[in-house]
């Protein structure tokens, strides 16, 4: 009996010790957790949607503290779906991946690129589907890509690559010059802004109905910044706008229209099967 009591008292002591340590460490751990999440060293827990979509093995891996590892394997799986042109599965895989690693902008960019560019391009050529269905899916994928990009921007508000990919979707698939210009405009000033973004913002603004005057002012300002901006496309766009807005001749830029320059003689023209570098494709 004494032994049992001794054993029980020991057990109570152990539990009390565990509880006391638990009470002491809980506020410290909560504080550390906040600090680790704020300094981006620790990821917030994956969302409910990701948990529901994850396979059992992926879930176990995630619970085992191997989120990055699971994300890498899901990326490989997504690549397989891409090879098989299985766009629904690919999108589902990326939904989980971006939930596991929401701060990795490469995942967001790849997801937008796959759905917005690859899946839509596939819908343009996939003759196994009736044309009506292809068109419907083309727009469905394009809009899905836009939505993915918007979610990505919510997660990473300062991401230039996500916006670049979104601009490509607007530009190449939806042919929406106003939206393209707006997205390029949003990139200006963000870390990692590409040098051409400011010009592209102006080029697409020039093609956006009702924005001609604003585009002219913007592109003219770029032109006045210096010779390095006197690029053929910029000159062409300004000249088009000058004509459209009836800008008085003295105020127009002096450069000749690059499109109206004398064409090189046919002797100097590269052969149609010649690629840059002088290589000829047989």
């Amino acid at each position: 009996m004494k032994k049992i009591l001794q054993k029980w008292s020991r057990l109570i002591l152990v539990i009390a010790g565990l509880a006391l340590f638990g009470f002491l460490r809980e506020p410290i751990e909560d504080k550390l957790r906040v600090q680790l999440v704020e300094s981006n060293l620790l990821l917030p827990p994956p969302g409910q949607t990701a948990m529901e979509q994850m396979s059992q093995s992926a879930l176990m891996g995630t619970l085992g503290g191997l989120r990055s590892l699971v994300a890498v394997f899901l990326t490989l799986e997504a690549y397989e779906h891409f090879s098989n042109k299985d766009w629904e599965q690919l999108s589902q895989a990326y939904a989980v991946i971006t939930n596991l690693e929401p701060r990795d902008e490469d995942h967001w960019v790849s997801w937008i690129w796959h759905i917005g560019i690859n899946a839509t391009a596939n819908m343009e050529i996939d003759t196994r589907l009736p044309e009506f269905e292809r068109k419907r899916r083309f727009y469905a994928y394009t809009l899905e890509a836009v939505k993915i990009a918007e979610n990505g921007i919510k997660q990473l508000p300062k991401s230039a690559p996500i916006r670049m990919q979104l601009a490509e979707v607007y530009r190449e698939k939806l042919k929406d010059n106003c939206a393209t210009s707006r997205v390029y405009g949003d990139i200006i000033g963000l870390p990692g802004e590409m040098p051409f973004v400011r010009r592209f913002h102006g080029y697409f603004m020039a093609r956006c109905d009702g924005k001609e005057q604003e585009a002219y002012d913007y592109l003219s300002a770029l032109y006045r910044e210096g010779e390095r901006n006197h690029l053929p496309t910029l000159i062409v766009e300004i000249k088009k706008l000058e004509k459209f807005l009836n800008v008085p001749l003295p105020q127009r830029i002096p450069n000749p229209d690059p499109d109206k320059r004398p064409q090189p003689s046919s002797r100097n023209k590269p052969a149609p099967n010649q690629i840059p570098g002088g290589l000829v494709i047989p």
Partner: protein
Amino acid sequence: MSDSNTTAPTLRPPTAKVPLFSIGRVWTIAGSTVTQLVRMKTFYFLLAFALVVVAVGNFNIPTTPAKELSMIKKVSFGTMDLFAWLFAIVSTALLIPRDLEDRTLYTILSKPVRRIEYLVGKLGGVLFVIAVSLLAMFAICAVMIYARESLFVGAELEAMQADSRYSQEEIAEQLSLIQMQGLRPELGVAVLASFLKASVVAAVTIFLSTFASSSLFTIIVSVLLFLIGHAHTMATNFWLHQTDSNLFVQMLVKIVKILIPNYQLFSFSEGVVQGEAINYVVVSQMGMLTGGYLVVFILLSLLVFVDKEF
């Protein structure tokens, strides 16, 4: 008569008092534990790890160099982390039963060795092997990352220099994108994070093994605790949301949080691997928290182990 004539056996002079705690004895036990683990062919795992790293370094996926380097790092450090905690559980769970089976435990405890010294020595041995394994794995993956990084930087530099459109600034910017995902000294902190996590796991496992009836029980319970410890925050948010913060659920969550270590906290190696800036103050606090876990769980283990009869 004869009894009175026999001389009383000469007693040895009393030996010096056994000190309460001796680093030397702990060191000896830790050393024997390391030998014991090495004889279990633990380091063969490194071969498998090297294969994983080489395989992932040669994935033929059309992606950017920076992304490929990031992928190599994620897989390598994920595998290191997995090895560290799994090894901590399995080796620690096996040590005391193995000593019991080999009867080494009786020999050790019959000597003037205190039980705390035995426990600390065992834990120290396990942690030493984990540290050496992690460093060896880091060296393997560092070689792979450096080799790939040099290759990518060389190829990118050659391609960009061949094209006169790129300025030196643009070339430097592009190369820094790759180098950011390459071999950097900060990655050492990711190894440290895995080590801290494995240390806590080992301390909890040694505590479990002091009262467990078999190694299998210790391993299963340790793995379960590890999974629960990782799902703390996730489960808390989920349950409280599902039950509208029901009082009973709140109490249950509190009990789980108090009794089971929060292992998820120690997964900060993922952020380091992804190239996030390191907050060294928080990292040092994590080190202190790990120290706290080790001390408390060793003391709790002692409480169970101190008068355990074998």
